[in-house]
């Protein structure tokens, strides 16, 4: 380590850093530190000229460690690592000092800010001296995929994977494919048949030589890691007895879908008490059967459709279920064709008509004499049985916003547009494949914008309404995106594993097993023969819990070693 050469590059970030921090003073203070061979400032280190400067200095001074004092490492660490790599240095020989987000942007006293920036930069210099060259490693990728859920998303993912020549195990809890789409009649906005669309998919899936459809099956266990999962699936044997089968897969796509909101939870609507108050899914059933009637078997003269049942209110779900508005308009059309002359009133909060063709569809729907009534969030319309004298079965009292009046609407049939919510088994599923859920129970994607398909567990993907309420095109798009992600990897046949993980020094491990239980990724294995624990690096996510917990200091966190952190500590306190 005596002949180390460290280069320090302090970024002005235009004036973002330089207007508060005296970057030259920072340079002066770190230049004196051991091993520092060159220290410079530049307007924008992340710019191409900035990176070129770093690479040139690596060449010229033979630098073997680099410190960049600039923005947050969460911003540009990858950028500068690449720069090192281009110059032939191991990318992990970089350390960044966060002197923008955590210094120049949060302090107004230039003296104190400069002092702090100098301390942070010095700490980075002292830390980087202890950095080790780390290599990313690659393991074989099993081309098979487990798809959980046989709905529209699951089938779409399965078909793309299978068409590319990979084996797919499609596990479905129920005894049929199709999921919630199989419960709908026509689809908005073009009013084409969900059934036709679905039948074509199901036939292809069932007949596909690369797809094993596992009906009435439950995934019991998912062991292993990306590219090498072992999944245990419980299905029915011929004699009907439950049997567990283990399938090796390289990836898992979770498409477990959603369940509809239980309308009886909103008392104002009398669902379950008033026979002619039905949910959207019950109404779809009528439509699929081709006869729209009241319980009494009469054709309804007045049909009312109430939006946002369980959605967009404080009491139940704050979120919008996204498909209901357009489905409601679809009903207006279907009622008109099923019961010519029937009056349709559409009671809504806001009309959400985003997405291709939807605004058109909204316009066309308003042309077919549908009465639109707008109500206030949380100010539920109230449904009651009509009096004998009335010519209708029920009366709906609505505080209509646009007119500002309280209006009483007649109704023979009321359709409640029930929202989507996470399935009750979503927690179980999340635990099974080790992914997280948000406060509403939807599975969390690894990045809400840039990576909406992957999860925090490498090799596990999510698609369809199990991630959030979605319509068919979005579900299919996400499903096929997941398939594409997987195919990109199977095509390479190998997957890279992060170079940062924890390691047990078996010469120090006493086999106390304190760490075994701690790992959330079950990455720590105990070898009963040797009486030693060791880390399965591909499973390790480098949180470092076991490192801090090991009572005999036998576990090391690569790139976050005690040595490195102690050096950083001495740096900030120097």
């Amino acid at each position: 380590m005596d002949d180390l050469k460290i280069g320090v590059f302090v970024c002005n970030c235009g004036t973002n850093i330089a207007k508060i921090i005296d970057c030259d003073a920072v340079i002066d203070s770190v230049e004196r530190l051991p091993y520092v061979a060159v220290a410079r400032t530049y307007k924008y280190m992340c710019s191409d000229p900035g990176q070129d400067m770093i690479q040139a200095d690596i060449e010229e001074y033979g630098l073997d460690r680099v410190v960049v004092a600039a923005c947050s490492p969460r911003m540009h660490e990858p950028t500068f690592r690449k720069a090192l790599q281009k110059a032939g240095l191991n990318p992990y020989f970089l350390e960044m000092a966060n002197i923008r987000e955590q210094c120049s942007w949060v302090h107004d006293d230039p003296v104190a800010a400069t002092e702090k920036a100098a301390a942070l930069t010095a700490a980075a210099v002292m830390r980087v001296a202890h950095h080790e060259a780390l290599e990313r490693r690659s393991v074989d990728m099993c081309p098979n995929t487990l798809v959980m859920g046989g709905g529209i998303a699951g089938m779409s993912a399965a078909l793309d994977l299978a068409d590319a020549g990979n084996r797919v195990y499609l596990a479905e809890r129920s005894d049929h494919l199709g999921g919630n789409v199989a419960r709908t009649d026509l689809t908005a906005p073009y009013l084409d048949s969900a059934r036709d669309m679905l039948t074509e998919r199901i036939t292809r899936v069932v007949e596909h030589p690369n797809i094993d459809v596992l009906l009435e099956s439950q995934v019991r266990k998912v062991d292993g890691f990306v590219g090498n999962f072992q999944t245990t699936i419980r299905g029915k044997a011929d004699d009907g007895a439950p049997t567990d089968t283990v399938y090796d897969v390289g990836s898992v796509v979770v498409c477990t879908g959603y369940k509809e909101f239980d309308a009886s939870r909103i008392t104002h609507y009398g669902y379950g008490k008033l026979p002619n108050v039905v949910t959207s899914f019950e109404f779809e059933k009528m439509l699929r059967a081709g006869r729209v009637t009241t319980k009494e078997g009469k054709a309804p003269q007045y049909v009312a459709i109430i939006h946002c049942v369980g959605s967009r209110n404080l009491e139940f779900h704050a979120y919008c279920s996204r498909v209901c508005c357009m489905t409601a308009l679809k009903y207006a059309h279907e009622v008109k064709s099923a019961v010519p002359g029937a009056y349709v009133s559409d009671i809504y909060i806001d009309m959400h008509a985003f997405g291709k063709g939807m605004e058109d569809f909204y316009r066309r729907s308003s042309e077919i004499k549908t009465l639109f009534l707008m109500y206030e969030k949380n100010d539920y319309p109230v449904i009651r049985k009509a009096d004998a004298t009335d010519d209708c079965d029920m009366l709906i009292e609505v505080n209509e916003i646009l007119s500002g009046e309280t209006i009483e609407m007649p109704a023979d049939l009321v359709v409640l547009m029930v929202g989507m919510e996470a399935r009750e088994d979503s927690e179980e599923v999340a635990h099974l494949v080790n992914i997280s859920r948000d406060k509403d129970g939807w599975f969390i994607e690894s990045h809400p914008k840039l990576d909406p398909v992957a999860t925090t567990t490498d090799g596990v993907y999510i698609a369809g309404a199990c991630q959030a309420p979605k319509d068919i095109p979005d579900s299919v798009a996400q499903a096929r995106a997941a398939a594409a992600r997987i195919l990109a990897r199977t095509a390479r046949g190998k997957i890279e594993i992060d170079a940062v993980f924890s390691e047990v020094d078996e010469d120090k491990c006493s086999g106390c097993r304190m760490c075994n239980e701690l790992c959330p990724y079950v990455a720590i294995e105990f070898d009963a023969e040797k009486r030693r624990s060791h880390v399965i690096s591909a499973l390790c996510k480098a949180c470092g819990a076991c490192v801090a917990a090991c009572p005999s200091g036998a576990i090391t966190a690569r790139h976050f070693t005690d040595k490195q952190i102690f050096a950083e500590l001495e740096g900030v306190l120097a």
Partner: protein
Amino acid sequence: MTFQPKIVGFLCNWCSYTGADLAGTSRIHYAPNVRIIRVMCSARIDPTFVLKALHDGADGVLICGCHPGDCHYSEGNYKMMRRYPLLKSLLADYGIEQERVRLEWVSASEGQRFADIVNDMTERVRALGPSPVKAALEADLAER
């Protein structure tokens, strides 16, 4: 001149460090006394880090992790939560005031909260004055 305490902050990468970055992007100003060291998870924070920080001259140590239930590694912050009361009792027996070492949960969206914590802690530690560990180590040198 008022005493400027040196405070070391150990922040988890996913919530708290990001929260501190957010304070920056939101231009929320706070006291310059905290020097942040990034770890991947609060579970990585070996109690030794805290002892070493105090030994090396820190007047206070701030530990931040994701809110319970929100850990990127699902349960890392609980591991830190279990160490904390033991750590406090150890420090108390060595005569170190409770307020010098503090565990706080800061999410990625709580830039303001992070700033408030830093300001509050800086004031409290400033009120306590320099760390007694420093005094003790100086006393040793004086004695021999």
